């Protein structure tokens, strides 16, 4: 959350929530509007803008959660994992990455509701670590540990914890989650509760505030979910597992918007007793199941030795960050950041309105490129995890996920393509650097260069001209 946003939050709530010892405080802040006369929006806001503001916060939180879960998931593995635990660790990784995928679905759904309200996309977020009164806990990129798991569990916990969690176990989880600073961990559900109430209330948001015509450019399950979903649990037979699908919902009506927000809220928390007993349904249950089997300190290591909040070479690392100093790893960290930016650019592009160039017809290209970048990010993260963080060599490098300087979005379709080409060009310079092209992962770099060259060639066609090449023969490869 941009620091400038905090003043609105400050004006909304009198308490400084994080400092409070009460776990219920955040409920009060989010229902704070209730304390004020319910027919007036907070100062400086209309109800519509307030809804957009809260959605923007929700988007930032979902975005941050997704990235954190990706980082945590990717940290699992490494040669130090004893063979008897290989299966369990692989399964955990799959579960955490499955949850990350669901967060991506949440993020897409929130963007859909934002578009439905006629507001611009909200893809921005702070670099790690960062904190806000509305964030569930200070966001950080951390390897998976019992403590991080405990934070995830509390964040996604239902109001009433299920019976099978003993008092002692809950205490342990809450203590681990609070950490040495005994901070308060907020629940994401409360934010959605407020949003649902607002979007569902015609006296605050008239139907004329909605933009059903944005429906075609909203992301859809058909585009996102593919064959994933239930399978993310490693099931071999369809219909035997209750894990929810990756959820991407679109909104063309008030009821759709409420349903979408409700579904997101429920996918995190276990909404009812049945779900609270089921290890496969909610994020809460899935994290809890891993927590119960996760090795305690000193037993064995489930994760690679990766730092918290790694950053690519550049400005000196700030407090809580770890600078990637190894030359080769540093370059790959730069590559990672560019590819991350590319992913966000494709995502934004996929939501932009169809222009004269007929974006809808190119939707497939944009969305598949976006998915392609997800694979590339995974691959580059894997490269980083095999390179040292610094000369000491004990720690490994990892994905920095640093935000670009700007998320100002291009105004035309052609400008979007030029941005994509620019990013590919910037990446090429890195991949051709001798540190990389003579390094351990040269073959991958060369293949990525070849992939990008093909992509650039096509994109120039889209960016440059309305002319369509119609020739049936093109020059033979390699000839």
């Amino acid at each position, binding site marked *: 959350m941009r620091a400038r946003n905090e003043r609105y939050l400050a004006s909304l709530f009198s308490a400084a929530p994080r400092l409070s010892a009460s776990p219920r405080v955040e409920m009060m802040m989010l229902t704070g509007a209730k304390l004020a006369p319910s027919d007036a929006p907070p100062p400086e806001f209309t109800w519509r803008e307030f809804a957009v503001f809260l959605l923007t916060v929700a988007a930032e939180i979902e975005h941050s959660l997704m990235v954190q879960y990706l980082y945590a998931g990717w940290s699992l593995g*490494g*040669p130090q994992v004893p063979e008897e635990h290989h299966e369990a660790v692989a399964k955990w990784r799959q579960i955490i990455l499955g949850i990350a995928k669901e967060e991506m679905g949440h993020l897409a759904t929130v963007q859909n509701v934002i578009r439905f309200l006629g507001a611009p996309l909200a893809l921005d977020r702070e670099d790690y670590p960062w904190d806000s009164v509305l964030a569930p806990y200070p966001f950080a990129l951390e390897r998976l540990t019992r403590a991080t798991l405990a934070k995830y569990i509390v964040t996604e916990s239902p109001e009433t914890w299920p019976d099978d969690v003993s008092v002692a176990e809950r205490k342990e989880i809450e203590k681990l989650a609070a950490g040495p600073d005994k901070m308060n961990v907020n629940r994401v559900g409360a934010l959605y509760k407020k949003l649902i109430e607002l979007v569902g209330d015609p006296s605050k948001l008239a139907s004329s505030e909605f933009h059903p015509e944005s429906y075609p450019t909203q992301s859809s399950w058909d585009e996102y979910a593919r064959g994933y979903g239930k399978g993310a649990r490693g099931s071999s037979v*369809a219909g035997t597992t209750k894990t929810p699908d990756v959820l991407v919902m679109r909104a063309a009506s008030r009821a759709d918007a409420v349903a979408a927000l409700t579904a997101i809220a429920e996918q995190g928390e276990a909404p009812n007793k049945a779900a609270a007993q089921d290890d496969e349904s909610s994020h809460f249950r899935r994290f809890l199941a891993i927590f119960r089997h996760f090795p305690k300190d000193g037993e064995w290591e489930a994760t690679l030795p990766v730092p918290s909040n790694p950053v690519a070479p550049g400005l000196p690392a700030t407090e809580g960050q770890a600078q990637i100093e190894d030359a080769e790893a540093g370059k790959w960290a730069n590559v990672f950041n560019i590819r991350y930016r590319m992913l966000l650019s494709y995502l934004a592009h996929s939501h932009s309105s169809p222009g004269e160039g007929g974006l809808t017809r190119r939707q497939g290209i944009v969305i598949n490129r976006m998915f392609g970048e997800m694979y590339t990010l995974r*691959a580059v993260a*894997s490269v980083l995890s095999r390179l040292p963080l610094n000369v000491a060599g004990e720690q490994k490098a990892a994905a920095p996920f640093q935000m670009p300087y700007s998320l100002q979005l291009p105004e035309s379709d052609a400008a979007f393509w030029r941005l994509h080409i620019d990013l590919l060009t910037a990446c090429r310079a890195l991949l051709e650097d001798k540190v990389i092209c003579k390094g351990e992962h040269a073959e991958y770099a060369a293949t*990525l260069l070849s*992939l990008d060259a093909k992509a650039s060639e096509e994109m120039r066609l889209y960016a440059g001209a309305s002319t369509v090449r119609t020739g049936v023969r093109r020059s033979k490869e390699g000839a």
Partner: protein
Amino acid sequence: MSIHEIRILPPLAIARLGSSKEPLENYELVVKDPLGHRQICAAETLRVNTRTGEISESYQPEMPIKFRDGKSIRPVAPFLEVFARTDGEKLVPLTVDLLAAEGLNPRSVKWTVSLGNLKAFRRTTIEQDKILASTSFSDHDVHPLEGRCDNFLPGKTLPLGSARYIKPNAAFPEIRLRYTPAAGLVYGASETRITADGVNGPVTEIDEIVKDRVIYDPTKEHATWRGWVDPGEPTDTNPGQIYAGYANAKGAQVSWGYLDDECDGIVEAEIQIGEKKLRAFARIGAGPPAFAPDSLPIRTVADEIEQALFGPEVRSADVSADRVEDIVRRAYETVRLLNTAVLNGNPVDGRLGAESMMPLQDSNDFHRMFAPIMATTLVDNLSVVALHQTILTALKSGTPPWFVDVLRRPEEVGDLSDKGRRKMPAMMRGADARYMTLTRRQIDLIRKSVASGLFFGGSAEE
């Protein structure tokens, strides 16, 4: 060194039809650009002297390889080599010297080739419709394989190619046979054919296709192939009615009695060493050419044999990133040649279901609601190819495959939900007529490679 056993390698060889006099030369498929096409590179080719039956030379063919001579396609004519298991547990090519050590000579090897074309018989189940060819020899002449059938006209046969025992010489002393398939001609049962059931009875025309190659006699007592209609029984072929003919008034396919010169069968080699008779065999078949020779199918006969031989699970030691990449590459090579938008069931120029494709089969076979498989915006060939290229690229990083969960499991073939149909491989048909699955062994390989990528150093990889 004595001979304990003989074997023929390769154990299964495929010949491919073509009418050129020159057989297809040898090449290798080499992956140079990981995202490009396999390069076709010259490889050792053996030239057979047509007069003597000896190998006159080994040479590297000129590139690009010639798949045809004018309008004639070069047939693929495989060699089959005899190997001998000798003392010291070795499997070595059987040579003139090895034979001599047993007091034998090349003439001591007796070859028998037995081929069949049972396509008519498979439908009619009448014994007299079996077309079989068999010949035995120990010389080096070309031995035509004449398919004989009780229901053929007197003196008529179906040429199924020829076999030749290659004459060993000093440079090429090994014992081998070459099978050359037929030209790829269509044979028939009449000089005329019915094209439709008209209002005033059947419409008949001169059959220009087969009038010079009528070999089947439909007037024989047990000859039903001409005029045959699949009865719609569970014993029918599946798919059914897949023979040349016309649709009668009821819409049923009526056979013209056409026959082709494809076949499959067995090649045997025998030698007698003292009291002991050693026998080996291999299977051969003759099918159509592979028309995209730089691409390989995603699921092949080799995958089936490997699975039957080694089981559904891969040993950890046999798991490698290269083998996973090979499967993905083959998927990529298939996708590249598909109009994925059309096969997805997208409307084409406003028309729905214009071409045969899996969504249409779902409706046809199970009355599923007709709907495209994937989001229609995502499936143009360009975007699907780009996505597969990205997957191939990402695998090069050493990251473990992440797509195990989207692979269709064999037990999921009845799942025609949106999600079920989007599993991989997508849009293609399997041997059970439903969406294709990989072999269990292929799936297991991909599954196991996750571990080797995730716990690198902790597995057989590297």
